Each structure stands twice: as C-alpha cells, then as structure tokens.
C-alpha cells in the first residue's frame, strides 16, 4: 500500500494502462508538456512520447472525433476534457458517434474510449468550471458513466474504464484531487471489484443514502454526525451511474425502508430522479417514506461566492435524512 493523492492515483492508473497496452493513447488540451491543468497526466508524455500522450488543438469535438477515428483503427483513446463545462462542443461526437457506433455498425466497430472529465464544484472556480453534466450522458444509450470518489477506486477504475470495450464517461471529482488515500499499486484488475458494482462505504440500518463523486465523503461525514444522534445511515457510493447497480441499493432499502439520493447536479431529470423512480418501482412495499433527493438547485452554476448555497453539504444531507425519517426538518411545516 502506498499513500497518494486522488490525482496521483489516476496518474498512476494511466501510466499503468499506457505501459500495459500499446493501443492506449491519451489526448487532450495541455496534457502533454504541461501535464494537464490539474497535472493528472504529469510526466506521461516524457515517459511514453508524444504519440502516446498527445497535446491537441483546442477543439473538444476535434479531440473526441479524431479519437473515434483512432478507435476505428483499433486504438483505445483516453481523452481529457479539461473542465466539465467544456464538454458541450464535443456533445454531438459523443452522443451521435461514440455512443452509437457499436449499435450503428451492428457490433463490428467498437468504441473503447474513455472520456475523462474533472467534474463538480467546490473549488471557487470561474464560470463553466464546476458543472455536473452526468445526466446528459446517463440518458444516452451506449455510454457507461462512472464517477469515482477516492484514490484507491480511482487507480483501479480508470484502468477498468480503459479496458472496457464500451465507451466510458469517466467523471473525476476535481475538488477531491488533493485528498490522500491508501492505494495498492500492485492491484490486479482481475481481482478488483467490477466498476459497475456500487460500494457500501458505511453500514447503517435507518436510512439508505446513495451518492457519488465528491459527495461520498460528505455523506460519510453525515453518517458519522448522525450516529451521535442515534441515527444509523447506510452510505452507498454508486460508482457507476450508468448502469446503476440496483441490486446493492435494493438490498439496502429493503432493510432500511428509506432512501435519500444526493448529488451536486440539479434535481430535474437527474440521476437522483432516476434512482428514486426505479427504487420506488422495485421496492414500493418496503418503503416507509417517499424517496428524498438532496441536489444542487436547477440553476446555472452560480458564481463562486454563491456555490456554498448551491452545493449539498453535510447539513443539507442530514436535513434530507430527517425528511426520510419523518423527523423535524426544514419542510416539516410545509408537509404538515
């Protein structure tokens, strides 16, 4: 075990993938000489060369579109979109080409592409640098959508995503890039938990709290705080947003009878809406209360000095838990 940061874990995962498979090629803006604006690809160009770690012109559609051509040729491109809010120029290539080519080609053309996107807020950034665009991609058939939450997972899951024969949108919670954790750099993919499987990161009996990305740590902190109040929260790190590991959530909700889903993205049409609906369909008879969503507001991402009023934090998550448990909460009078 080695203690490294989240960002370094992805760097090591990319290094390992580049070393293990000659068809892996990294593409993106500033990822070569600079090592990426977050230094996630630091040192990789020097180690593997400019044809394996490619600084591209500033064109997201160009990056993803040329990666499609490389995948057609048998490469496994790993593209970096510099910030979440910059992915939209590539949206057509992702939705109409990357996601659909396996289907459109009747299985003859594979798109083993990873689209890495640092996502989410909490770093006091400028506009378009703090978004959570995951629902656009979870709504798109043909894509897998992954959000990792800790260094150990990041190291394994980036390699699993690269090894996948399906295209993966790989969301990295940028505000956790500097968090340290223990990582087993010798970890073998064959023994690793599949990236499509969720992880129960805190056991509990009273309510199931599902989240992903940066909010996993917030949810664990909420569980710790609630325990002092004799409320037992089970926290599930979703890890895969598409497809969702409903078996894990279902098993938990059948015990707790209560579900809270939290994410930074807005509420409407979000991952939480999908999970709330699906769990209601699957576990209706086990539910003691309506599922609760704790999400960002349905607003454009606000200026940095307002983001604390937008992002779900520990207290808002606990308020959601209180709603699920029927304890006094911010909406008690409204509901009454």
């Amino acid at each position, binding site marked *: 075990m080695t203690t490294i940061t989240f960002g370094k874990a992805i760097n090591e995962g990319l290094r390992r993938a580049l070393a293990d498979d000659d068809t892996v*090629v990294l593409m993106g803006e500033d990822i070569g000489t600079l090592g990426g604006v977050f230094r996630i690809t630091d040192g990789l160009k020097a180690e593997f060369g400019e044809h394996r770690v490619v600084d591209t*012109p500033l064109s997201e559609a160009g990056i993803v579109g*040329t990666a499609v*051509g490389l995948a057609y040729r048998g490469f496994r491109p790993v593209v970096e979109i510099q910030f979440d809010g910059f992915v939209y120029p590539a949206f057509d290539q992702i939705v109409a080409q990357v996601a659909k080519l396996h289907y459109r080609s009747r299985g*003859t053309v594979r798109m083993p592409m990873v689209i890495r996107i640092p996502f989410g807020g909490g770093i006091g950034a400028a506009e378009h640098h703090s978004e959570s665009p995951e629902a656009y991609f979870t709504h798109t058939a043909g894509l897998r959508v992954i959000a990792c939450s800790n260094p150990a997972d990041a190291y394994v899951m980036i390699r699993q995503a690269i090894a996948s024969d399906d295209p993966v949108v790989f969301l990295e919670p940028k505000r956790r890039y500097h968090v340290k954790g223990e990582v087993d750099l010798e970890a073998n993919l064959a023994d690793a938990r599949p990236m499509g499987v969720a992880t129960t990161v805190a056991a509990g009996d009273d309510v199931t709290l599902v989240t992903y990305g940066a909010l996993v740590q917030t949810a664990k902190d909420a569980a710790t705080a609630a325990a002092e109040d004799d409320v037992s929260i089970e926290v599930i790190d979703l890890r895969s947003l598409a497809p969702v590991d409903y078996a894990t959530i279902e098993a938990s909700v059948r015990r707790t009878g209560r579900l809270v889903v939290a994410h930074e993205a807005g509420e409407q049409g979000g991952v939480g809406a999908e999970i709330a609906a699906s769990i209601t369909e699957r576990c209706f008879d086990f539910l003691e209360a309506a599922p609760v969503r704790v999400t960002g507001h349905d607003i454009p991402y606000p200026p940095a000095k307002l983001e604390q009023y937008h992002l779900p934090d520990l207290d808002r998550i606990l308020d959601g838990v209180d709603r699920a448990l029927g304890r006094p909460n911010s909406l008690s009078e409204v509901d009454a």
Partner: protein
Amino acid sequence: MTPSDREATGLLTRPDDLVRLLDATGRRHANPEFDPWVADVDVDALVDLHREMVVVRRLDAEATALQRQGELALWPPLAGQEAAQIGSARALHDDDFVFSSYREHAIAWLRGVRPDELLSVWRGAAASGWDPYEKRMAIPNIIIGAQSLHAVGWAMGAKWEASSAASIAYFGDGATSEGDVNEALVFASSFDAPVVFFCQNNGWAISEPVGLQSKQPLARRADGFGMPGIRVDGNDVLAVLAVTRWALDRARRGEGPAFIEAVTYRMGPHTTADDPKRYRTDDDLAEWRERDPITRLHAFLAASGADMEAVDADAKAAADRAAAELRAGITAIPDPEPMSVFDHVYAEPNSHLERQRDRYARYLAMFDESAEGAR
C-alpha cells in the same frame, strides 16, 4: 498558401483554377501537372471507368424506383456525381480507408459493397449494411461532416503506426460550414495526417445554394489551414482520378493532407423526399445535363477509336446484372427480429439493458400465449 509553399507542395494549380482533362464535349486537354498521374490510363481503363459510371447510374435509378414502389423508405440519389465518385474511388488502394457521407453509393460499389448491403439501411431493415473492416469503408454518416474527424483520427493513427495507408473523407459543400470539417482540417494539418479531404461541391445542400456556404471557391479554404487545395471538374472522371491519386500519393509519402473540391452537380433531388422544383429551375438542370460525366467520357472513347458498340453492350450488360442483383437483393433482405432492437447497444453485458430486454420479451410473449389460447 504562399508561392514558396506552393513550390514545396509541387502544386502549380491555383485553387480557383479548375483542373479539367476532358471537357464537356469529351475533348482531351493537356495538363502538364496532372497528365502524369493518369499516364497509365489506357483505353481499357477508360472503358472500365465508363462501365462503372453506367452501372452506378443504373443502380441509382433502380433504387429511386424501388423507393417509389415502397420498397425503400428513402433514397439519396447520386445522379450527376458518378465521375466525382468513381474517379476518386478508383484512386484508392485496397488498404486505404474511406469515411463517407450518405450519398457515396458509387464509392461503396467500388469498395465491393453488394447492392443489398447498400440498400438495407434505406429500407429501414438494418442500422448499417456492411462490415467496415472488410470493405475498408466506414459506415456512412448522416450527421453532416462528422466523419471528416474520424478520417483524420484514423490517419493520425496510420502515421503513428508508420502505415503506408491513407484515409479519405467524403463530404459535401454544405458540410464545409460545419465545425467538425473545419476542426478536422486543423487536426489534419497540425499532425500532418495522411488524409485527403474530398469535397463534392454538387451546388446544393438540400435547397441552399453553395453561395450560402461560401463566397469563394471552397478549395481556397485549404490555404488557411496550411494545405494545398485543388478545384477539379467533378464531372471529368479522368481529372478526378488524377488529382485524387496526386493527393493520396503525397499523403502516403508523409507530405500531409490535401483538400479537393470536385465541382459537380446533383441532378436529382436531395433525397426522394425532396422537391427541387421549389428552389431551382429546369434551365439550371439543362445546363448541367450538357456537362454529363458519362456522355463526355463516351465521346472521348469514341474519338479514341474504341469499339463503341462493344463498349455500350458491355456497360449495359454490367448494369443489367447489377440491377437484377439489386432487385433480387432487396426482397432477400430479411425483416429484423423484434428483439434484435436491443442488439449491439453495448459490447459488454449491461445490467440495465438486459433487464429492459427481458421485460420486453415477457411482454411480447404475452401475445404468443393469447394466440395459443385462442386456438
């Protein structure tokens, strides 16, 4: 492009010149720059080009008729663009790779795509018709210009792998306004990718004339991206063959991308759902009928002393065979199985879709049971 750049590319032609080896009457014009690229094209090769143009025109007419008969949902005719497509496709090597739009039926034909493979998509029976790796031609793209980036990525990979193959991106005049095409030109230039941009300027993007896309010859755009641009008479199969060979050859030799604007005309509608009478006149069409790509090669062959009776009989027989194959092929295309709607969404098992598939299968099975119960 500066004069010295032009010298470096070995290109004397300016992008607003029109490279033409055969004029509309079939008269051969000497061109010291491009004649060498077709020096090997003897009468037999010209007869072959003529036959293939006759065949694809016939296939196109048959497909249009099949759409009228309800056998195809839609068909985008290529009529008028036979020389641009046959000439450029003849320039390709077997290991080159084609990324095309949706009107490149003649390219597909020369890549060995069978008529039923060509038609299954337009019949609505399949998402695509052929294996791209077998034909060395990607499945066509309806999203305008999107494939140009794929061609560049493929070519970047070819270069990194030190392959001698090149890719070619086919798109139309309308596509030159798309971001993807412009971004493809940037990437191709920056990475010296062995790719040829082949723009068939057929005058129209559905109802919009090319003047709405560009105020100047499209080939001039190449200059701004740092690559040579050539305007060729797209109805002159010999000139198209020459310039495409030139562009592919320099790409293969590591000299980077080139842009070809083949000036041609879409004689028919955009698709069988279009009505060109709403936006262009019969006079426009008549003018282009005078420049028919097949007529001029026919005239040149006749003037070259070919046995035209044999040429015509041979071409007609080939077209008849292809048409018969097409008509037999269309009815042989099976209707897809209902549950195949779920096939190939993912390459790997996907728990969400498997559940949805199982549930839909149960739903469909309900009708089987009721049918049995009724008996």
